[in-house]
């Protein structure tokens, strides 16, 4: 895994040395208001109570989504952290709040003009998913959650789908945000 988390900086005494770091926060997770005088982004964002987050404690797979934005995951911005922090578990610093919802995603869904689940989930840009194109064995993980893989929900789809390539519908994301095509005029 690549770059890693945030508040180890404080534990290592680096924050006091003036090292800066930032993280993208979900709305509603800002530093407490009303008298508390902490710096913006003083605390690592908390994690909503979702299955991928629960598994991320064990699997260190956070960046699969949070580097590329799969599933509308907020993007990680870990500037100026020492290399050691690139190796630690995300859950070491990011606290999971039981019962909390991913608010940014909910807000995005409310503004989304398309039906819920109108589009098939994207696949992360990881080596195992690169190979899925070749092996068509996605269900080995996704039928029972091996390695924390989200479970497939293909109710009401034609039976032919059972034998089709997953890649026919599930797009593999390779970029955080590509530039929109240039308008000619």
């Amino acid at each position: 895994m690549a770059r890693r988390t945030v508040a180890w900086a404080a534990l290592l005494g680096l924050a006091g040395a003036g090292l800066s770091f930032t993280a993208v926060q979900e709305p509603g997770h800002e530093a407490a208001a009303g008298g508390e005088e902490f710096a913006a982004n003083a605390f690592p964002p908390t994690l909503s109570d979702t299955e991928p987050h629960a598994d991320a404690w064990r699997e260190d797979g956070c960046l699969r989504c949070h580097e590329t934005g799969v599933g509308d995951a907020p993007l990680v911005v870990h500037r100026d952290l020492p290399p050691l922090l690139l190796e630690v578990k995300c859950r070491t610093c990011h606290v999971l709040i039981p019962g909390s919802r991913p608010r940014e995603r909910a807000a995005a869904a409310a503004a989304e003009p398309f039906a819920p689940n109108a589009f098939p989930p994207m696949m992360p840009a990881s080596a195992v998913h690169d190979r899925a194109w070749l092996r068509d064995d996605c269900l080995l993980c996704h039928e029972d959650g091996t390695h924390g893989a989200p479970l497939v929900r293909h109710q009401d789809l034609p039976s032919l789908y059972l034998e089709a390539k997953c890649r026919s519908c599930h797009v593999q994301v390779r970029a955080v945000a590509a530039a929109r095509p240039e308008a000619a005029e």
Partner: protein
Amino acid sequence: MGATRRDFIKGAAAAAVVAVAGRRLPAQGVAPEDAARWVKSVCRFCGTGCGVLLAVKDGRIAMLRGDPEHPTTKGLVCAKALFLPKVVHSPDRLTHPLVRKNGQLERASWEEAMELLAGRFAEAIERHGPDSVAFYGSGQALSEESYLASRLFKGGIGTNNVEGNPRLCMASAVGGYVTTFGKDEPMGCYEDIDHARVFFLVGSNAAECHPVIFDRIIARKQGRRDVLVIALDPRKSPIQTNVDLHLDPLPGQDLAVLHAMAQVIVGEKRHDLRFIERNVQFKATRDGQTVAVSFEEYVEFLSQYTPERAQMTTGVKAEKIVEAARLFALGPTMSLWTMGLNQRTRGVWANNLVHNLHLITGQIGKPGATSFSLTGQPNACGGVRDTGALCGNLPYGRVVTDAAHRAEMEKLWSAEPGTIPDKPGLDTMELFKALGEDRIRAMLILTTNPGQSLPNVEPYRRAMGGARPDKPFVAVIDAFPTRTTELADLVLPAAMWSEKSGVFGMSERRYQYMPQVLAPPGEARADLDVLLDFAARLERRGAVKEGFIAGRFQNADDVWEEMREASRGTAYDFRGMTRARLMKERGIRWPAPTEQHPGTARRYVKGEDPLLDEGPYADNSLADGEVKFYAAPEQRAVVWLRPALGPAEPPDAGYPFVLSTGRVLEHWHTGTMTMRAEELRRAYPEAFVEVHPVDAMKLGVRTGDRVKIESRRGAAVIKAWVTERPRPGSVFVPFHWQDEDSLINRVTIDACDPISKQPEYKICAVRLEKV
């Protein structure tokens, strides 16, 4: 959360039961009470013609799902279709006309725009004659639009300068079918996939370019050891996941492999002599003349293509060729091919040689045995090929060089006798050359992006947009800003998929109705409306006979009625496809001469093809299941003795690599639509060039390095992906990206097949340099 595989299977089975029972299948994510209505329609990307269901609510498409009741695609769709709602509702749509003034495109009214369009065309016709104007259409236009444009230009204005982008992708397949069988279009159908035991994929990355077709092949192959896939392709594309035997010739050398397979078949007496004697003739070209030859002469011709000799020239091991030939003859064999065969300077010949294999083995006209060209666009077949919207064609198998055909269409169109010229107009590449030389004075481009898609594109970009005195006038009708609209003098905003109604005709001769379910954004108009308006203004200016179009047609329904009549007496007869029937049914395959006829799965087969029962092609001496190639000369298909020639620009010391271009699953053609769906854009945000590890090591290139790809014509700078997909000495670049560095068609070659006039996108010589 979620379901186990067992639940998954149970759910799918339940869905199938629901589908069979005819109940509307609720799509995941949209509760029935939430969706205002579900509408059946058809995808607008490739020629697979997937049936789709649209959830329409509050004037928007809330969701798209595959249509499980569709007879051939059975509910399958690919990612591109699923994201079509985002494409249609993109904020990037063109919403008002734009006129170039002082070098800039500026907003204009429709009245100003249409007066400019008609005025410039009428002026060119008056000053320079009818052949000074041209129409360049698209396999994405609706059939009614292509038909009306062809009618206007050929029968109204009096020029055969009518072309379309199928020239760039399908012309060699057309040439192959016409020279072998006498008429265009495949004789088989998608149901043949369910019966084939051998799939012969030639120059086709169906896994990405026709995902639903490939999914059906996978489904057929699943769990059956007797269903095999043979690939003939220099590149190891993602179809390799399901290929049992891969023949990987040097680029451009596959003709010799096809001949060598035929040599094995006849050498081992695996040919079907009875079928040959009843249905086949042999021809060769000698001293520029076509001559009939015997089967024995064909066998003698093949003797120069033994597998061992073919191995020396093509690089394919002889034992692989032998194994492929034996499997092919065993059958039932279904050949499927796309651009790897068509986009070649010997594309027609290559098509002929695939047909040869089917004809000498009798692997044709039976369930699972057919020679099937896959189509890259939704309506290249029904729209451009069938309606005759190419420079040498007239509707439904007619050609401009045949006086009787011209007279038939002039009568139907109420055109003055002699209006349609007796010589073909300019083909696509000649048309754009003529534009650059100012011989074409006005051109109308509809639903296509030649500013990015033409090979060796830079001179043609200058032809369209290069500033010069008295520059020709170029008008573009499109839904999005493109690399072509940026060159145009006039841009007209078009309604797109689901914002207008009409017919798409896909690869298996199935005509399907696409209903309008949305209002176009802003001031965008349906292309047919624009063409009707354009025609009326030309009539008022005297450039077209008064009443030739104005007053005859109000909408696409009116045009369709004339099209049905135009098919009367032809091998395409679809008079039974009334508008009401198409709106109700999930497509109908022609021939379908009466309203009671269900459509034809397999042409040329007694008991299936109604034209063998009644009419000019009828033959009631045949037993059911027997084949008769009634459209071919002497009603026998032709096995051609074609020399195995190579590409126009093989690699050499200065340009030692072969460049091939193609596509990825998530994007389509020049990306003007798929790049508008964020998810698809993020799947492949930038161009890449596949480089074999052996070549990468020599060049010092690693994945992610930027590489300059340079030919004798131009260069592109693209990130490398080191992979074993291409052969050593070959590189592959998809052509979807429009940014300056990635415009790979600056590099490709515009050499064309002498018969089909289709350019050789698949092979040109380049050199690579890490930058």
